[in-house]
C-alpha cells in the first residue's frame, strides 16, 4: 500500500464518503463489537502483564533465598551459628550467608509479640539468610552435612511452596495472550460478517458505481475506510472504559498477593493504547479481504 493510498484512507474525502449510503446496523455492530472487544483486551493485557510480573518475581525469589534455622540451647546457639556459617561459606553455589541481627529477628516477631521481646532470654532460633548463586547449591548434600555437624540446623527452603504458583502465573500469562489472540480473531470474524452484510446490502450501489467507471479499489476503499474508522472509534472508547476499570482496582502492594496486583504499572499503562490501532488494523484487513472477495464474485 502506497503512502498516498494510506493518506487517502485516513484523510478520505467527503465526496467519496457519501457515495456509499450510511448503513445503520452494520455500523452499530462494528462499533459495539470493537468497543466490547477492546474493553476485554485491556483486561487480558493487564492480566498478562500482572501474571508476568508475579511469575518473574516469584521465580527470582524462589531461585535465590532460603533460611537456615538454628534451634539450639541458648549456650550453644552462637557456636552452632558460627559452624553453620562456616559450612555455608564452603558450600559451592551459595552466594552469601548472613545471620540475621537481633534487631532484624525482633522486627520479624514484632507483629505477633510486640516490640519489647527479650530475645536473648528466650529460646528463639537464630535465623541465617542463605542467598543462592545461579546455578544453586546441592540441597541434599548441604542438608546431610549440616545434620552431621550442626545438629540444631534446619534448612528451610521456604520458597519451594511457591513453585506451583510460579507455574500457575506463567500459565495465566500464556492464557491471557491466547485470550488476546482470540479477541483479535473474534473481532476479525465479526467485522468480516458486518462488512459482508454491508456489501450485500449495497449490491445495487456497487453496480451503479461500476457502471459509472469506479475502480474496484475505489469501491473497496469506500467500505474499508468506514469500517476501519468505526473499529478505531469503538476500540478507543472500549479501551478508555477498560483502562478506567483497571485503574479503579485497589492499589497493588507487595504483600497484597495476586488480586490487588492485577493492574498496569509504569509504562504498562501505555500498552492499551496499541489496542485501538490493532483493532483498526484488524478491521482494515478483514474488510479489505471481504470487499475484494465480494467484488471479485460480483464481477
Amino acid at each position, binding site marked *: 500500500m502506497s503512502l498516498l493510498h494510506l493518506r487517502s484512507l485516513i484523510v478520505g474525502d467527503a465526496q467519496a464518503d457519501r*457515495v456509499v*449510503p450510511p448503513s445503520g446496523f452494520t455500523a452499530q455492530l462494528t462499533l459495539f463489537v470493537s468497543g466490547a472487544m477492546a474493553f476485554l483486551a485491556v483486561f487480558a493485557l493487564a492480566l498478562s502483564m500482572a501474571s508476568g510480573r508475579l511469575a518473574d518475581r516469584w521465580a527470582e525469589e524462589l531461585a535465590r533465598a532460603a533460611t537456615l534455622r538454628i534451634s539450639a540451647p541458648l549456650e550453644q546457639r552462637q557456636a552452632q551459628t558460627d559452624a553453620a556459617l562456616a559450612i555455608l561459606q564452603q558450600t559451592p553455589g551459595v552466594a552469601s550467608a548472613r545471620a540475621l541481627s537481633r534487631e532484624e529477628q525482633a522486627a520479624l516477631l514484632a507483629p505477633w509479640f510486640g516490640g519489647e521481646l527479650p530475645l536473648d532470654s528466650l529460646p528463639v532460633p537464630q535465623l541465617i539468610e542463605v542467598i543462592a548463586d545461579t546455578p544453586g547449591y546441592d540441597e541434599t548434600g548441604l542438608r546431610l552435612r549440616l545434620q552431621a555437624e550442626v545438629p540444631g540446623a534446619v534448612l528451610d527452603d521456604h520458597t519451594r511452596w511457591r513453585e506451583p504458583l510460579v507455574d500457575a502465573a506463567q500459565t495465566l500469562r500464556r492464557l491471557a495472550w491466547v485470550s488476546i489472540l482470540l479477541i483479535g480473531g473474534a473481532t476479525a470474524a465479526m467485522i468480516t460478517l458486518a462488512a459482508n452484510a454491508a456489501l450485500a446490502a449495497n449490491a445495487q450501489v456497487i*453496480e*451503479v458505481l*461500476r*457502471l*459509472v*467507471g469506479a*475502480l*474496484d479499489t475505489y469501491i473497496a476503499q469506500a467500505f474499508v475506510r468506514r469500517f476501519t474508522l468505526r473499529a478505531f472509534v469503538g476500540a478507543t472508547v472500549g479501551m478508555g472504559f477498560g483502562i478506567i476499570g483497571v485503574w479503579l482496582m485497589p492499589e497493588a502492594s507487595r504483600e497484597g498477593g495476586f488480586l490487588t496486583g492485577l493492574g498496569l504499572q509504569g509504562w504498562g499503562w501505555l500498552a492499551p493504547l496499541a489496542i485501538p490501532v490493532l483493532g483498526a488494523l484488524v478491521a482494515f484487513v478483514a474488510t479489505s479481504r471481504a470487499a475484494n472477495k465480494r467484488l471479485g464474485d460480483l464481477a
Partner: protein
Amino acid sequence: MIELENVGYNYGGGELLTDVSVQLAPGSFHFLTGPSGAGKTTLLKLCYGALTPTMGRVRAFNMDVKGLDRDQMAYLRRRVGVVHQDCRFLDHLSILENIALPLTVSGRDIGQEEANLQELLSWVGLSDRAHATPPELSGGERQRAALARSVILSPDVIIADEPTGNVDWEMSQRLLQLLVELNHMGKTILVATHDLSLIRAAKKQVQARVLRISNRQLQQAGADL
C-alpha cells in the same frame, strides 16, 4: 470506435443474437430498433462491455473487450457514456451528486467542476432540481439527468437505451435535440428505441443509420421508416 464482428449471444437459453456485425464509426449516429425482447438492451451491453459475447468479437477503441481486466473495464466505462433504460441512480444522493458521480469516482474534485456542472444542468433544464433526490423527479427529468451524467466525462461515445422510454412527445423531442447536439459536437451516438416517430424526427436533423433486430439478426433498415 466500437466494432462487433460476427457476434452471437445467449443468456443460457436459446441463441438471442446470431452473427451480428456492425461498426460505429466516429461521429456517426445510429438507432437500434426492434420488438420488445428482441435483444436491444443486450446488444448495447455487448457494445459497452457489460456483457461479453458468446461468439465473435467486440472491439472498443481497438481493444478486444473480452481480454479486459476489471480495471480496464472501468476505464472503458469512462470513455463510453451510457444512459440506462432504468437510469440507475444512487437514491441517497442529490441529482447534482448523481450527475457528478463519474467525476467523483474517478477522483476529480467536484469543487473545480462546479461551473461545468451548472452549465450541464441548465443544458438539460434541471438547474432548479439540482438538490432533489432521484425518486423526487419525474420520468422525463430522470432521463435528462441520466443523459447529463452520461456526458459529464466528455466521452467519445454515448449509448442510450430507450432514453425517451417514459416521457411524452414534447419531452422526447427535447431529449432527441440534446442527442443531436452531442452528435454535432462530434460524439458517436447509439440509441435503442422502439419509437419510430422519434427516428423519423431525428432523420430530419442528422444523418442517422437505423439498425433493426429481427430473427436474432441485425439488419439495416431501409428508407421505409
